């Protein structure tokens, strides 16, 4: 599992409508998208008690790329991915926008599938064959009364009907080996495995049908730091080998920078900053991103003082009129309380920030902490 990970040497992989023209102008060849999220909003409940958990999110993920979504609890990052895969439970409700998954069939033909309007049977065809999910707690994600082998068998039996029992078993063994587990685990029950082993099983099950997109919802949060690192590096190697695209949700930015090509930071249901992983890590632009970076110790590199972010996230049932981060922001200005900034491109590397500090018209001075220049390594995405 120590294969070197080939990385694309492009500054950006993630574009949306706003940056598309500039991307083309820069001469960057746009890759085929695997997932396009367009002005997507999700509510909990309706009427008086309605809470907008995700508001107007636009994202684009290209083939074989890793998009990290970061944010603290309640920022809407999990709601976003569950809603877009139509797994969100009542009272969650998609209230607007489109989600398009570009599905490649066995013949290599790409068909766009609108996930928001797809019927149950259309969804069943797409699920797991093209989009799979790994949850935070593998213990609760695995059925406690079934052997590990059944998890594989069930998926293969449903989606690969032509396989015989022996072939399914062989595939399960192969998948387990891929994540560094012995085949004898197949006959074990979830409670007989360690936390790290269980999460590896989940990852192996997620890759069983060779999907184009794997969604990881805080897959390492419940694990110790050593296992966390092992799994992150294995994920990198597996992605290099199989070329699936990945959405990786976490609140730990330092973990994301290891794995992701691009990072989107969410706060109170909106994306507040989006940039290349290293750029965002080394030179954050949004005050909230800066705060997040100061909330976790970096896995390696220079030590930072951990300060955290004062205050608490806004009550989404009664959101502030202006910038939702303004009440906690050290750099808040008068207009922040009244006008909500939208996500606009800043600089020339395709990064976008939703913050008035970077509005040229406002004439405000950008604080030193938010104007660091990313190192050359960051802009060229060198691997450490």
């Amino acid at each position, binding site marked *: 599992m120590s294969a070197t990970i080939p990385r694309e040497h492009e500054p950006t992989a993630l574009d949306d409508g706003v940056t598309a023209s500039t991307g083309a102008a820069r001469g960057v060849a746009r890759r085929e998208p695997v997932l396009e999220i367009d002005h997507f909003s999700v509510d909990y409940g309706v009427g008086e008690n309605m809470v907008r958990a995700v508001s107007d999110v636009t994202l684009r993920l290209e083939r074989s790329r890793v998009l990290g979504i970061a944010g603290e609890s309640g920022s809407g990052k999990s709601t976003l991915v569950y809603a877009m*895969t139509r*797994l969100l*439970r009542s009272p969650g409700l998609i209230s607007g926008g489109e989600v398009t998954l570009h599905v490649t069939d066995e013949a290599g033909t790409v068909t766009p599938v609108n996930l928001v309007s797809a019927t*149950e049977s259309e*969804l*069943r*065809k*797409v*699920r*797991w*064959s093209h989009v*799979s*999910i790994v*949850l935070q*707690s593998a213990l*609760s*994600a*695995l*059925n*406690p*009364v*079934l*052997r590990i082998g059944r998890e594989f068998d*069930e*998926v293969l039996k*449903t*989606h690969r009907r032509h396989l015989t029992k022996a072939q399914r078993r062989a595939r399960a063994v192969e998948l387990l080996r891929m994540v560094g587990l012995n085949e004898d685990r197949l006959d074990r*029950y979830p*409670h*007989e495995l360690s936390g790290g082993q269980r999460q590896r099983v989940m990852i192996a099950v997620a890759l069983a049908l060779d999907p184009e997109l794997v969604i990881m919802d805080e897959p390492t949060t419940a694990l110790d730091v050593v296992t966390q690192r092992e799994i992150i590096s294995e994920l990198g190697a597996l992605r290099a080998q199989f070329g699936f695209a990945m959405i990786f949700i976490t609140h730990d930015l330092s973990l994301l920078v290891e794995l992701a090509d691009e990072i989107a930071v969410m706060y109170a249901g909106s994306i507040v900053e989006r940039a290349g992983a290293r750029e965002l890590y080394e030179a954050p632009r949004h005050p909230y991103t800066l705060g997040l970076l100061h909330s976790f110790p970096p896995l390696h590199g220079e030590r930072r003082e951990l300060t955290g972010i004062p205050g608490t996230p806004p009550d989404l049932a009664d959101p502030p009129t202006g910038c939702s981060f303004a009440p906690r922001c050290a750099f808040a200005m008068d207009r922040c309380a009244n006008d909500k900034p939208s996500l606009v491109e800043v600089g020339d590397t395709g990064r976008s920030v939703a913050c008035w500090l970077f509005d040229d018209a406002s004439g405000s001075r950008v604080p030193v902490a938010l104007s660091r220049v990313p190192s050359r390594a960051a802009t060229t995405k060198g691997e450490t």
Partner: protein
Amino acid sequence: MRIVARRLGLYLLTAWVAVTANFILPRLMPGNPVQTLIGKITSQVTPAEIRAIRLSFGLGFKEGLVAQYFTYLGQLFHGNLGVSITLGAPVSSILRESVPWTIGLIGISTVVSFVVGTVAGAMLGWTRGSRFDSLIPTATFFQAVPYFFLGTVMLLVFGSNLHWFPVLGAYSQGATPGWNWSFVASVIRYGELPVISIILSSVAGWMLGMRNMMITMVGEDFVLMAVAKGLPRRKVIMHAARNAVLPSIANLSLAIGLVVSGALLVELVFNYPGVGDLLLQAVLNEDYPLIQGIFLVITLTVLAANLIADVVYLVLDPRTRSEAAV
């Protein structure tokens, strides 16, 4: 297998305790059955007759309590439960006649009620909030009505008035008991109304229990994963139901254990020749050997049912296996 053997050992120990209690308890009671029996005989009783009665109760021997106890165990081992005072027949042969009726009637009703209630509960839990939820208060109503009332009303309405079902007894007078078709058909025909009444009065418990567990399970991550895996709806429901049914299985074992004893009201209302009816007669007549024999059978059925439930549980829930091994 080691766990099963350990459980089995535990149950053997429990059975021994029960058997011993069955020996000691009557000996702690004031008075003795001989006095009772003599009191029942209206004519003159000679000393020789008293001695004979004492002997038949095992009281005439000049044995100590310990020796008596071992004699008792030995007799028990050979299936000798003594002789019924009122019926004048060996308790074991009386039980052999009435136990099958009870097991047949109550056992089948309990199992059918469990299956119907659990399947309905699983569906109700899955489609929570649908119009089928109105089944719950209906079923609960029938469980809330005292059984003797429900049974009597059903007997009156469907049996006596509408003549949809035959009433009184376990088979028609014309049929000759044995493995012939007309007798079996008659038993089934006569069993219908009692079975329906028992199911009606007990199905709500299974239904509610399963529904509530199902609602809990539907919120679990592994059910979400089953959906995410694109499994057909039927399989997703099975994922939830497979886990939700575990507490119901435990309750089923208790219910089956009580089958033999819990039949009293049913058998009285429908005049069914089972153990419940027998026990009532035995208690009314202070027929100690019979009471003791019935208690023993009840105790052993409860134990056997629990043992079976334990084993089934071990098979169904792998987590209990490792916990037991600790």
